[in-house]
């Protein structure tokens, strides 16, 4: 507490110093954190002179003080700098206190590093240990909830499933809203072709994320650049934020050997309860009774409890009797026999039980690292295998990483980091709209026996489906980042970076004849798809770092070249003689093979960049950056664009009047403005490209060409989307930085949105890619960390973050709709000026028609006869919002918003001696989910329904409380997209709880054995009715956020882990 006063006192003394004789001073630097230990390598200087030295191996120093100088400054990275008056002393002990605020921490920014205290932009950092807390197997899940303003959403709970990361709200609805990933300085995972797909995968929205190919254990830290001042140096790719990943390096000292292992069991977090066979049969009979009563149908009940015999040739064949069970029969399943000796079995099934299982997971990591002043090395290997909670799903990954560097001379350093990863993902078809395993399990009639091979028109037998469908994605990624760095003069260095990457994805898909996708006459459908992506990056950077008195200058200038080459092929074949080889040998298909091959994708980027950081008096910080990008994706006159940014920060804590207040331990104000771009359109998108369009004039195909319908009319004027962002932030610290708070406000506006705009279909096209409209994101971010207990046996830290973002569309010519991903929800995502991306649009329900007179009170039905009006009894009444007496599209209104009001998380770390307990709570508030699953709850076919729908169905008795229309066996009901499908998606989740124990030096040669028990996804508090509110079927499609469409249920898992340090 008195530290500031003391420093102030010293400074004042320093100012008043007179000229005195030269004296020799000796001393010792002590480590305030470890009493009794000394610090090696601390810098001891006399400010304003060249006099000074470095503490030796025992922490001692000795040097001559210049004449009249008595102030010495002792500093060391990670410790608070001490200024001491040594007048009249010849020996002194200086105790350096650890800098808990990590103010000297080095932060990686684009094309360089900075001290955190010198930052002007908004950069959030997460350490590898924090990333790994909770035991996520991939980087994206590790990031979830941990950084303010960074929203991480999984597509669904499938192992290996895609994750979308949005920094400070979505900027665009057509182009990618995903941030740029930089690994060890080089852009990573930029493959625009993405996940390989063949025709056999059509309708399957499952995507993987490039971050999957990184092992969290190899990561030292991650920086997320959020404001324009930080991201503008990445120019045309900076608009969505930049995630900079630094992989682990070796630390100086003796070799460190680590090994860790984890074993996990996973269980389904929540089931959606559907009808049991008995209730289902009752429901089906009721549906037919209703059809007979209300719709004049003549169909008999499907569950009658009677024997049936085929009738042929004018008589019944009594030897071929089959038993048609009654609902009650399912209460007492088993064998039934009739008077003719026919035997039949009554049996139902719980299809969800047939597809779920307990999933096992194991993970092993080993690493060796070390280093010296000559360089460092780190080697690591890992293996992860995760079985999903749905049969035949899982994820397996192994990887090898090497990170080495060497000082060749005292001025030349070379290094490389290289990562090889092999991942295999077994998908089932989830996250899809029409067929798929989850859909099958939920709607397949429960009155069918398990072993039945039935593939109904509605869905396939789930037990067969889960075994008959294979969808395996094999990926290999090799990524290397190498550099040579020359220190030309003490203040000037040149660095040449070279990045090479290779990604290879192979996907094998097979749907057997027992799946809907492969049922007769398709007779098995196989698909093979391959994507490869090669990338090359060259960066030549010149960095200047010099201090001139009170002026400090750090500048970087560079030229970069990037190139990507991608290829993709796929083939699909059907009609296999049998399902034995599951399409492994696609040549076994009897016919109908489709071969697809896309022309090589070539994307090149050439850039010039520069940034200047100027610091005045160590407290006024200025940054300016410029980048000019040229991209091959645009036409001649639109190829080049320049992006500028500027920022200013004031370290108010270094002002004496602030220090005099003796209240803050840190106070810094930041403000920035800049522009960034998004070139997220594919290669050749601005060209008028034709497709083969053939026609069989006389039975054989002739070749022809046509425009590509989905691309729409050509638009040669396409250009970058530009995002302008203002950021104002404040960093606060109290109580010696035990309590730290960062608050950031931002306002960013993206103009010239690249988007597919719906155009009148009478043009022959349905859409066109144009630059039109703006998206604004405005938000507030709070990050708090509090060391409640810092010293002693008990340590307790809690940290949290809270983010608000308001998204708004403007500048559109008129309302438009996101390109539909789902056929029954064609126009549900409204894009309207003044409203956010993710605005849900549809009809509003107004209860049910309870009787004929209520039907007739609707003007449109006033003239109906009794028999016709009766059909509408028990049907949904939609609200006639414009009062014209009819339900038309003009009666649609805004029925939801998938954007949260805010997102938050709270992490607690509590430790006592060698025990530690940590947990994380994370959630979103105020967001809606479009529960597309409910569109299959039609109350009008043989599909099974959730218990809640059955209990809420309309009957004359339950008319008042009905939530669903009457059950019917007809097909005439028309469902409109209404507020029925919009649910509150707010949730609070306990993401993990970990209890750990470190057993220090248990045996000779072993430093530590750590044990941990972790529970993931322990509980979720939510009103959402389906599996999991953390769902986003649209994946990285920013235009359709917050949809749940037969998502894979999330698992609750329990992990036991051990880790050894040698």
């Amino acid at each position: 507490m008195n530290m500031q006063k003391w420093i102030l006192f010293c400074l004042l003394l320093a100012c008043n110093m007179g000229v005195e004789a030269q004296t020799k001073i000796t001393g010792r630097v002590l480590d305030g954190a470890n009493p009794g230990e000394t610090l090696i390598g601390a810098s001891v200087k006399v400010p304003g002179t060249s006099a000074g030295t470095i503490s030796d191996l025992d922490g001692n120093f000795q040097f001559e003080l210049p004449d009249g100088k008595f102030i010495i400054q002792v500093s060391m990275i990670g410790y608070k700098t001490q200024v001491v008056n040594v007048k009249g002393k010849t020996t002194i002990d200086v105790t350096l206190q650890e800098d808990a605020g990590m103010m000297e921490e080095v932060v990686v920014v684009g094309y360089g590093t900075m001290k955190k205290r010198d930052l002007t932009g908004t950069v959030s950092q997460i350490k590898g240990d924090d990333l790994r807390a909770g035991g996520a197997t991939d980087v994206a899940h590790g990031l979830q909830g941990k950084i303010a303003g960074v929203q991480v959403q999984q597509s669904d709970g499938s192992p290996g499933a895609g994750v979308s990361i949005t920094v400070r709200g979505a900027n665009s609805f057509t182009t990618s809203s995903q941030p740029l990933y930089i690994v060890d300085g080089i852009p990573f995972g930029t493959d625009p072709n993405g996940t390989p797909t063949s025709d056999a995968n059509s309708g399957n929205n499952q995507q993987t994320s490039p971050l999957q190919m990184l092992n969290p254990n190899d990561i030292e830290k991650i920086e997320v650049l959020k404001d324009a001042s930080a991201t503008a140096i990445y120019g045309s790719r900076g608009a969505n934020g930049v995630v900079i990943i630094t992989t682990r390096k070796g630390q100086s000292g003796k070799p460190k050997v680590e090994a860790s292992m984890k074993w996990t069991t996973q269980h389904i977090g929540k089931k959606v309860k559907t009808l049991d066979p008995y209730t289902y049969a009752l429901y089906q009979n009721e549906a037919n009774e209703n059809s007979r009563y209300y719709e004049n149908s003549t169909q008999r009940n499907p569950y009658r409890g009677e024997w049936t015999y085929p009738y042929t040739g004018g008589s019944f064949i009594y030897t071929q009797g089959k038993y048609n069970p009654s609902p009650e029969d399912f209460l007492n399943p088993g064998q039934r026999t009739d008077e003719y000796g026919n035997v039949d079995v009554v049996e139902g099934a719980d299809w969800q039980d047939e597809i779920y299982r307990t999933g096992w997971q194991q993970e092993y990591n080993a690493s060796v690292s070390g280093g010296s002043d000559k360089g460092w090395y780190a080697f690591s290997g890992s293996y992860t295998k995760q079985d999903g909670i749905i049969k035949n799903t899982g994820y397996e990954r192994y990887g090898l990483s090497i990170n080495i560097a060497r000082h060749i001379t005292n001025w030349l350093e070379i290094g490389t980091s290289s990562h090889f990863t092999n991942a295999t993902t077994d998908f089932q078809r989830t996250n899809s709209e029409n067929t798929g395993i989850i859909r099958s399990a939920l709607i397949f009639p429960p009155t069918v026996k398990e072993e039945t091979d039935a593939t109904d028109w509605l869905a396939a037998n789930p037990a067969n489906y889960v075994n008959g469908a294979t969808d395996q994605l094999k990926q290999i990624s090799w990524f290397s980042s190498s550099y040579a760095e020359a220190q030309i003069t003490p203040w000037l260095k040149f660095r040449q970076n070279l990045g090479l990457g290779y990604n290879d994805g192979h996907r094998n898909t097979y749907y057997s004849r027992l799946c809907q996708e492969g049922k007769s006459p398709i007779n098995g459908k196989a698909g093979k798809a391959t994507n490869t992506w090669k990338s090359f990056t060259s960066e030549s950077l010149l960095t200047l770092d010099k201090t001139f008195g009170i002026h400090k200058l750090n500048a970087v200038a560079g030229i970069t070249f990037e190139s990507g080459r991608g290829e993709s092929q796929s083939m699909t074949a059907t009609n296999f003689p049998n399902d034995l080889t599951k399409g492994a040998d696609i040549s076994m298909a009897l016919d109908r093979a489709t071969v697809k091959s896309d022309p090589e994708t070539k994307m090149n980027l050439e850039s010039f960049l520069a940034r200047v950081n100027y610091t005045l008096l160590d407290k006024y910080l200025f940054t300016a950056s410029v980048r000019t990008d040229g991209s091959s994706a645009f036409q001649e006159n639109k190829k080049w664009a320049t992006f500028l940014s500027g920022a200013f920060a004031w370290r108010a804590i270094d002002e004496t009047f602030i220090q005099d207040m003796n209240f803050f331990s840190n106070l810094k104000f930041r403000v920035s403005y800049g522009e960034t771009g998004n070139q997220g359109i594919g290669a050749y998108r601005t060209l008028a490209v034709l497709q083969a369009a053939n026609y069989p004039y006389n039975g054989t195909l002739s070749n022809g060409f046509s425009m590509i319908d989905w691309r729409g009319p050509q638009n040669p004027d396409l250009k970058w989307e530009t995002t302008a962002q203002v950021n104002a932030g404040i960093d606060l610290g109290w109580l010696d930085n035990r309590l730290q708070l960062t608050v950031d406000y931002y306002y960013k506006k993206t103009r010239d949105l690249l988007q597919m705009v719906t155009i009148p279909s009478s043009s022959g096209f349905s859409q066109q890619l144009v630059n039109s409209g703006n998206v604004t994101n405005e938000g507030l971010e709070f990050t708090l960390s509090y060391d409640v207990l810092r010293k002693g046996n008990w340590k307790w830290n809690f940290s949290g973050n809270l983010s608000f973002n308001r998204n708004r569309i403007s500048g559109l010519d008129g309302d438009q709709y996101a390109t539909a991903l789902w056929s029954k929800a064609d126009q549900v995502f409204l894009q309207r000026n003044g409203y956010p991306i993710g605005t849900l649009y549809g009809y509003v329900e107004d209860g049910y028609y309870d009787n004929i007179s209520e039907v007739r009170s609707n003007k449109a039905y006033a003239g109906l006869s009794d028999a016709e009006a009766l059909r509408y009894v028990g049907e949904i009444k939609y609200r006639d919002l414009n009062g014209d007496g009819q339900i038309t599209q003009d009666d649609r209104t805004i029925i939801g918003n998938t954007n949260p009001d805010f997102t938050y998380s709270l992490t607690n770390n509590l430790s006592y001696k060698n025990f530690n307990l940590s947990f994380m709570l994370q959630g979103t508030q105020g967001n809606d989910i479009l529960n597309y699953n409910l569109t299959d709850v039609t109350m009008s076919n043989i599909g099974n329904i959730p218990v809640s729908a059955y209990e809420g169905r309309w009957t004359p008795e339950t008319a008042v409380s009905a939530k669903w229309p009457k059950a019917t066996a007809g097909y005439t009901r028309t469902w409109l997209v209404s507020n029925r499908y919009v649910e509150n998606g707010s949730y609070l989740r306990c993401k993990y709880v970990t209890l750990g124990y470190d057993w220090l030096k248990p045996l000779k040669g072993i430093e530590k054995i750590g044990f941990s028990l972790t529970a993931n996804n322990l509980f979720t508090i939510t009103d959402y009715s389906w599996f999991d509110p953390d769902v986003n079927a649209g994946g990285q499609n920013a235009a359709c956020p917050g949809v749940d469409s037969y998502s894979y249920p999330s698992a609750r898992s329990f992990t036991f882990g051990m880790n050894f340090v040698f």
Partner: protein
Amino acid sequence: MITKNIKNTIIVCFVCCGIALSFTLSSCKSWIEEDPEGLVTDERVGDSEEAAAAWVTGTYSKLIYDMFCWGYFPRVLEFDADYISGPDWLFGTFGAGNFQGESDVTDALWKGCYGLIARANNAERHINVMSNISTKAKNNAIGEMKFLRAFAYFLMVRAYGPLPIQPEEATTEYTQPRQSVSDVYAYIVRNLEEASTLMYKNTDKAYQVGHASAGAAAGLLAKVYATQASAAMPAGTEITVRTGPAYDGTGSARTYAPLRSVTMQKNAVSGYEGMDAMALYQKAADWAKMVIDGKYGSYELLAYDQLWKKANCNASEFMFSLCTVSGDATYKVSVHSQYEGYMTEQGSDFIQEGGWVGCTRHWYDLFDSQDLRIVKGVKHRWRAKTQRESNSGFYYPQNNEYTIAATGYDLSGNYFGAPTGIYADGVSYYYSQDAQCLAFTTKYMDVTNNAINNADANFPFLRYADVMLVYAEAQNELGNSSEAIDYLNKIRTRSNATAASATGSAALDTQVKRRSAIIEERAKEFACEADRRWDLIRWGIYLQAMNAIGGSDDAGVLKTRQERNLLFPIPQPELNTNKTITENNPGWN
């Protein structure tokens, strides 16, 4: 000092290398050039006869991919009519008049046709500027584009009424207002007239089989005129339709109801007011006659047993058809699957799946019993794969004659002896009064491989028989009764129906009788060729004919229709984006 020099040298080299690399990359000018070597662009198609052919083929291609390949065609043209039926999962929405309930089907007509138009316009623009091509070939290619464009507008104008007409020249204005029905027809007529002079005749050496020809343009023009003429006929014009409720009685006692003759009064057809019916019929007659007289190529009716043979699918009677290819995964057509069903394997007696769409019993009963169009043109026995185990099959129709032959019993249950004829094969035949037993056509049976879901059954858009019946219709309205009966009889006698006559027991002795007979003949001749709905619409008797069924048809498909069913709803995406269209067709959202 030496080390210092070495250091400097190395640094200089190193920096130079870096700079050199940068210069090399930046000086290769193509670094950010876009080089679409693997892609075809407009320029690369070129200027030649082949290039013109490629643009033409690319336009035809739209007919299959994506009008027919998703199964929306011929469904959208066919299912909303009186004599057609099928299972309720297939017919229950669009086929029951709920056009917006299945908007992907309904909208396929709009999107498909406008897609075809856009391609035709684009192709024509490219062909127009070609110089390295013979005038004849160029004219033919342009003529084909005009023909396809007119065909697309004709399909739509009958369904939607007023339509946006797309400019033929390149434009960036994608919003076009609807134009009146008569303006759309004027545009269609102009295109077809030009096409009929530009295109090859089917007798020209350069004509290629499978393409539309001058005769198709002339024949279609005759039909276009007749369509306008019939719609423009005065309200109250009488037409007798043989129809009625599907069944008499209820429950297990129900039987197929006999045909009831209902004389309907024509309604005025919206959009055709003010057109001169007689002048239009005169043009229809003139154009039909020119086709008949061979002015636009050589056309003849095939003998009935040759008509639906695969080998004859491009014979001259088929003036314009959708051409198909067997078993292609992209260019696939489900006509065979929909109307016939495909077999479990080739040569099998069992239908694996499909064969859902058929005609009703009333349609069947329209025919003379010896008429080849039901004797041979309708399936009388077939077996589904589910009937393998019980060794059974279906027969059709459930009348005394066929019931006795198939089961040995008559409809009253009297035994007549063992099954006979095609039914004497040991299989138990039975009948089911629902969608399983309809009058399934045999038109699309003959295909290369009948055990696949995308067999090569061509779908006819315009047959010479149609032109002849248009001619007969026009002559009847123009008062030339004997010419009308002559041409009606050319169609009837081809399939062994009793010739119609102006005298005798079933004399067509009034204009109304002849008119009704010709319309009925069209229903019989062009069954399952997506023609019936459009006859009912143009004659203004759609609502009367549909509602005469009094509810549901043989298979339980709801046939009751309202005013709004006269026009299809305009697709929502068009309404949302085309600011010149302020409201949908009457009755639709």
